[in-house]
Each structure stands twice: as structure tokens, then as C-alpha cells.
């Protein structure tokens, strides 16, 4: 046996390039996604700081901004067009590059093969391509910051006609073209990823790993991949049509009779609402493409750290599938005020409210999972609990926005900003942090610092609440989102003090993220060595070395004998039974 293993190790010696750069190993690709995602998270956070500075101190010169941003902040005051670019890029980067690629890319890649007992993905080369196409998309997106007309500045939803006419504003010119190219690449990358995740889950499970024994994480990633596979092509269709409008003078989205700078626009007869339909057909499943992986990571971490089986595993899986299916038919709730037929709006009210059933079931299953559990407050557990603490207010306010009559009042106000930052932005980020803290020992073979992790959690959790909770009040008072400054009208300027408060909170929460960055990179090299199973967890990835070798397992892939959550089984020697332990047959 020993000779056998040695032989294979020698046979598969990898060079630096095949091991760390153009690697087909799913574990390396996952780490590449994670580190790229962290990079984008930092960029997105800096953009949000710039926005917050502007909102708290409108028209007050800050010379340091001119030093950093040059012509975008002449005299130390952010230009309005740059503020719009900040909004656009913050949204795009956080939603797609951090919470889609960074989250799914990292954990689908890392956990699917390890938790189902496979040696790698079904198509390792496509998997490598998926990362490098994503990398190319990242480079194009980053490049758009450094061109003369600046990055795309038409909102991350890219509504035409503003986005369809190159000369409408500077931010709709080359920056928007690069945005579209980058997103097209991104869609290709996510398609390659989804192909792999689905095929691997269905085809590469080890012996004994039936679908009913899959950890909830794999279920989540699997459903997410199906959603991405079906919804991203629709955005691609819309993006291609938008490129046609911009480059070839077609009129898919540009209506007749538009006048720009005193000149009539040559386009005629297009329908801007059509873009909204195409965009939100992706855009809404996208919310769940972000949320479901976070949900599933959290479920796994809660069960492990509560030392209890995940409550109602089958129901939870059903709820995830239900969320995925319903998410494809709710997109119209973003469009109640677009002039869409109110009857259609009514249908979307019903489907949207219906999606709260499986979501609520999942949340309650998680709450019952920790009920009377023997909780261990690791940083991962804190972030998982924090996820619930952020998701619940987000989801509850969603019910208001889902109802068309209420949404007409709240649409495009800070209420919406607060809602989606709770329900999909910060909660998904918390899910991701939980995942990083939990699987870091497996990924890098070392432990992250516990104290710094807990400090990071409290700074983030309190910070996030202080940032976003006041925005509900601003929204109810009618403060519109995406505005450059709130100085003109009393109903908005009354919140100037509150805006300063939020900005300070944003910097405090941001400072907490620096703790994470330090902890993460320091621990990769200097952290305490991790053993195989530091959390005493049951799933397969914890039964191999930390980090797992190339090929994940020794000469034989593991065999699975039981479900994923056998914690605190009465009569068992320890409070957990790994999936690989055979079931003893009592003979009497």
C-alpha cells in the first residue's frame, strides 16, 4: 500500500505553473476563485466608502480624494458622473464578481468533489477554463476604471435607453462597452462552471453516496448551478441585443421620438421594458444564485457546531429546490412601476409571496437545528448565526416590497437598498465568511486565528446593522436611491446627520474587514497547523488530509454508509459519526 501511494505521488509531480496557475485541480481553482473574490470584495468596499463620503459630506472638498482619483474629484469633490459610476461598479462587482463567482466559484469547486467523494470535477479542463475566463472578465472590468470616459455609469441593471445610446453620458461610452464584454465573458465562465457542478454531482458520487446522503451544501450548489445554467443565457441574449443597439444602430431597446442634446435619435420603435424583462429574468434567479450557496454553507456549519443533525433534512432539500424553481417566475416584482400590465403585476405578487414559504421553512429548519443544541461559538458559527440575523429582517421587509401597492411607494428608495443589502448582500457575505472560516483549515492546512475572527464578526455584524437599518427609515421617508447628494429638499436633507452616522459605521465595518484580510493571509503562512478534522465533522472532506492531496483521497475513494449529519447519536462513542463509518449490524 505504502509503495503504491509513493509511486503515484512521484508520477504526478506538478510544476509550479500546473500546480498554482494553470491548474486543473478543483482545490486550486477554488482557492484562485476565493482570492480573486476577496480582491473584488476589497475593491467593491472601497467604492462604497467613496459613495458614503459623498453622501455624508456633500460638496465639502476633501483634497485627499483629488490625490487618489485625479480628475474624478477635482478640487476634492466627487463628480456626479463618477458617483453614478461608483454605484454601477459597486453593484456589478459585489453581485457578480464577489457573491457569484467568489462564493459559488470557491465553494462549489472546493466542496462538491470533496463532499461527494470524487477525485476532481467531471471536466477538469473546462473547470480551469472557467476560472481563466472569469479572470479575463475581471481584467476587462478592472481596465474600465482606467479609461478616459471612466467605467460604466448607467446602474448595474443597465437600463436602456441610457445604456443603449453611447453618447447619452460619458459613462455609457467605452466603459459600458467594456462592461458588456466583461459580463459576456463572465456568463461563459459561469456556464462552464455550472456544467461541471451539475455533471459532477450527478455522475461522480462515490459508492454509497446517494442523493439522499448528500450534504446540504452540495444540494445548494447543485440547485444554484441549475439556476445559473438556465438564467444566465437569457442575460447573454439581452446583452447581445444591447450590443447590437449600441454598435449596429438597431432599435431593440430604444424607443421612438427620443431627443438627445437637441438632436433626435435615429433609432425608432424599440421597447426599453423588454430589456427589463430579459435582465430580471436573470436578475432575480441571480439573487438566489447568491443566497442559496450561502444558505447551504450556513446549514452545514450550524449542524456541525450545534452538534445536532440538520433538522428535517429532506424538507430543507425540498425547500431549496422549491426556492430555485420559484425564483424563475418572480422577476416581474422588480418592474411594478415600469408600466407593465397590472394584471401581470398581480401574478408576480402571488409568485413572489409564494417563494417566502420555502424560504421560511428553510429558516425555521435552521432555527430548530440550533434549538437546544450544544453550541460551539467558532467564528464560522458566529457568522452562520449572523447570516440568520441579517437574512430574517431582509426577508421580512421583502414581503412589503413584493406587494405591488406598497412597492409603488417604496420603489427606488433607500428601503430597497436596505432590504437587498440585508437579504442578499451582507447575509451572503456572512455566509461566505462563515464558509471561509469553516473550511480554511481544509483549504490551506492551517487554522485561522480565533480571536481575530470573533472580533471581525462583531465589528461586521454591528457595523452592518448600523449601516443598513437606518436606511429603512430613510426609505419610508421617501429618500430615493442612487442620488448624488441630498441637499436640495428638506425631506432628504433632514437625514444628513444620519448619513454621517452611517458613513462612520461603514468605515468601522470596513476596518473590521481589514482584520479578516490580515487573519486570512497571515494564517495561510503562519497559522497553527490543522489536523484532519478540527471541527469533528461528519462529512467526507474531513476524513482526508488537510489540505487534501492531489486526487483528494488515497488509493481508494471513500465509501459512504450513512447520512451527512449523524451528530450526538444516542449510544455512540463520540458525538459524531463520520459518513465513512460502516453501520454495525447487530446479530443476536
Amino acid at each position, binding site marked *: 500500500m505504502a509503495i503504491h501511494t509513493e509511486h503515484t505521488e512521484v508520477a504526478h509531480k506538478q510544476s509550479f505553473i500546473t500546480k498554482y496557475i494553470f491548474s486543473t485541480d478543483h482545490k486550486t481553482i477554488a482557492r484562485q476563485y476565493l482570492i480573486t473574490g476577496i480582491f473584488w470584495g476589497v475593491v467593491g468596499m472601497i467604492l462604497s466608502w467613496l459613495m458614503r463620503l459623498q453622501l455624508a459630506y456633500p460638496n465639502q472638498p476633501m483634497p485627499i480624494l483629488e490625490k487618489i482619483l485625479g480628475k474624478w474629484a477635482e478640487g476634492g469633490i466627487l463628480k456626479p458622473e463618477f458617483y453614478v459610476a461608483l454605484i454601477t461598479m459597486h453593484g456589478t462587482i459585489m453581485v457578480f464578481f464577489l457573491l457569484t463567482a467568489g462564493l459559488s466559484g470557491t465553494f462549489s469547486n472546493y466542496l462538491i468533489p470533496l463532499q461527494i467523494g470524487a477525485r476532481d470535477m467531471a471536466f477538469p479542463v473546462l473547470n480551469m477554463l472557467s476560472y481563466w475566463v472569469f479572470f479575463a472578465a475581471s481584467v476587462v472590468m478592472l481596465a474600465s476604471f482606467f479609461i478616459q470616459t471612466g467605467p460604466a455609469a448607467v446602474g448595474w441593471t443597465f437600463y436602456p435607453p441610457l445604456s443603449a445610446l453611447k453618447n447619452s453620458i460619458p459613462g455609457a461610452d467605452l466603459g459600458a462597452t467594456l462592461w458588456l464584454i466583461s459580463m459576456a465573458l463572465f456568463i461563459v465562465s459561469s456556464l462552464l462552471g455550472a456544467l461541471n457542478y451539475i455533471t459532477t454531482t450527478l455522475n461522480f458520487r462515490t*459508492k*454509497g453516496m446517494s442523493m439522499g446522503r448528500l450534504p446540504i451544501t452540495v444540494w445548494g450548489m447543485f440547485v444554484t448551478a441549475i439556476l445559473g445554467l438556465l438564467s444566465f443565457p437569457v442575460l447573454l441574449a439581452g446583452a447581445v441585443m444591447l450590443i447590437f443597439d449600441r454598435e449596429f444602430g438597431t432599435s431593440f431597446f430604444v424607443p421612438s421620438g427620443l431627443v438627445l442634446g437637441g438632436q433626435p435619435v435615429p433609432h425608432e420603435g424599440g421597447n426599453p421594458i423588454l430589456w427589463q424583462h430579459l435582465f430580471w429574468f436573470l436578475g432575480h434567479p441571480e439573487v438566489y444564485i447568491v443566497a442559496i450557496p450561502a444558505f447551504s454553507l450556513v446549514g452545514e456549519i450550524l449542524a456541525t457546531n450545534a452538534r445536532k443533525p440538520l433538522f428535517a433534512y429532506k424538507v430543507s432539500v425540498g425547500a431549496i429546490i422549491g426556492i430555485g424553481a420559484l425564483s424563475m417566475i418572480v422577476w416581474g416584482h422588480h418592474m411594478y412601476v415600469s408600466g407593465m400590465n397590472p394584471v401581470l403585476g398581480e401574478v408576480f405578487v402571488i409568485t413572489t409571496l409564494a417563494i417566502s414559504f420555502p424560504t421560511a421553512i428553510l429558516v425555521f429548519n435552521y432555527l430548530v437545528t440550533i434549538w437546544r443544541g450544544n453550541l460551539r461559538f467558532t467564528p464560522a458559527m458566529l457568522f452562520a448565526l449572523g447570516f440568520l440575523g441579517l437574512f430574517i429582517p431582509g426577508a421580512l421587509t421583502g414581503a412589503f416590497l413584493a406587494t405591488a401597492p406598497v412597492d409603488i411607494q417604496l420603489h427606488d428608495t433607500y428601503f430597497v437598498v436596505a432590504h437587498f443589502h440585508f437579504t442578499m448582500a451582507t447575509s451572503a457575505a456572512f455566509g461566505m465568511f462563515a464558509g471561509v472560516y469553516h473550511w480554511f483549515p481544509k483549504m490551506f492546512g492551517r487554522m485561522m486565528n480565533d480571536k481575530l475572527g470573533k472580533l471581525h464578526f462583531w465589528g461586521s455584524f454591528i457595523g452592518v446593522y448600523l449601516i443598513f437599518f437606518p436606511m429603512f427609515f430613510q426609505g419610508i421617508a421617501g429618500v430615493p436611491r442612487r442620488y448624488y447628494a441630498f441637499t436640495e429638499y428638506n425631506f432628504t436633507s433632514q437625514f444628513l446627520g444620519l448619513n454621517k452616522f452611517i458613513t462612520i459605521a461603514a468605515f468601522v465595518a470596513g476596518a473590521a474587514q481589514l482584520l479578516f484580510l490580515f487573519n486570512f493571509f497571515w494564517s495561510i503562512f503562519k497559522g497553527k497547523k490543522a489536523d484532519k478534522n478540527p471541527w469533528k465533522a461528519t462529512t467526507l472532506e474531513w476524513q482526508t488530509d488537510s489540505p487534501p492531496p492531489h486526487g483528494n483521497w488515497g488509493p481508494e475513494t471513500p465509501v459512504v454508509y450513512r447520512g451527512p449529519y449523524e451528530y450526538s447519536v444516542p449510544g455512540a462513542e463520540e458525538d459524531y459519526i463520520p459518513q465513512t463509518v460502516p453501520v454495525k449490524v447487530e446479530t443476536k
Partner: protein
Amino acid sequence: MVIEKKRPKSGAMDIDFNGTYSNGGGGGAGGHSSSYALPVQPAKFGLWLFISAIIMLFSALTSAYIVRHSAGNWLRFEMPEIFWFNTFVLLLSSLTIQLSYFQLRRDKVASFKVLFAISTFLGLLFLAGQVMGWNQLREMGIYVSTNPSSSFFYLLTGAHAVHLAGGVISLIYVFVKSLLGYYSSRNKLGVELCITYWHFLDILWLYLFVFIKVTT
């Protein structure tokens, strides 16, 4: 070594591990050691997933087409006759490629290569015919930006042509490999993948052709 060479690329585990390991999931070269895997080769399954993504792309485009068509201001124009010819060419290529597969299954590799080459050629002919059709439309004064109907026409046929060009490239790739003696009745995965994709493109074109014919 010969066996190694014949293994399909998609079962990369076998290549990575030189067959030292058994693949637990039963994927790999079509072997299903465990009852927990789908009864389908992973690469074929992956191709069907890819096809379903393409179906979503075209259903988005054609539903946008329906919405726009019903809004009026829709220029009706007669498609140049060459598109009928192209349709015939593509149908014929589907037929020949299927025949080539039957030959391969009976290990008649020589006639397989001939029929496969004919299919590839017909695919290229279809692409050339599409370009000629677009040129004829341009001569008629119908450009991309003339009217939403023409914009959609170029968009749908263009998007199909891009996917078909990808198909032609894979046909050429498989044909070159067949010249190097890769395929036989026992080792035909690459051919099967190509053929599935090719039939799909054929059906997709028929759908688009009827769709456009009815509305222009």
C-alpha cells in the same frame, strides 16, 4: 498505451491518474462501477446541459421577437430563396452525419470518414450560403438597422451561425482525429457528441426558419 489513447478526453480522471485509481463515481470512460451515477456518460450529459443553455438563449431571443413583433411597425420582407437551399443543405448534412455514424458502428471506418467529411463540407456550405443570403438581403436594401424585423432576422440567423461555426470546428477536429485512426465502433464518444450537437443545430435552424418565415 493504446487503451489510454482511445479513452475519451472527458474522463480526465483516467488520464490524470494513469488508471492507477479507480474512479469512485463511476464516471470516467463510461464505466459505471456504482449504481449511484446517472446511466449516461458524463460528457454526453454535459453536452445536454450545454444544449439546454443554448435553448434558453434562443427562447429568450425568440420571446423578445414575439413581444416586439406584436408591437407593430414591423417590416415584412421576402427571405431570399437561398435560405431554402441552405435549409436543404443542413438537413442533408444531418442525414449524412447520421449515416456516417451507422457506418462507424459497423466498423466501416473508411465510409464513415467519407460521410463525415461530406457532412463537414455541407456544414461549411451552409455557412457560406448564409453569408450569401445576408449579402442578397443587403443588396435588397435590408440592413441590420433597417427595421426591428431585419434586426431580429440578422440577430437570430447570426447567433445560429456562430453556434454552427463552433459545430463545424468540432467536426473538423473529430475528422482530423479520425484520419489519425482514433475512432472505431468501440470508441466513438467524440463522434457521438458531435452528432448530437449537429442534430440539435439542425432542429434549431428549422425552428428559427419556420419562426421567421411565419412572421416575415
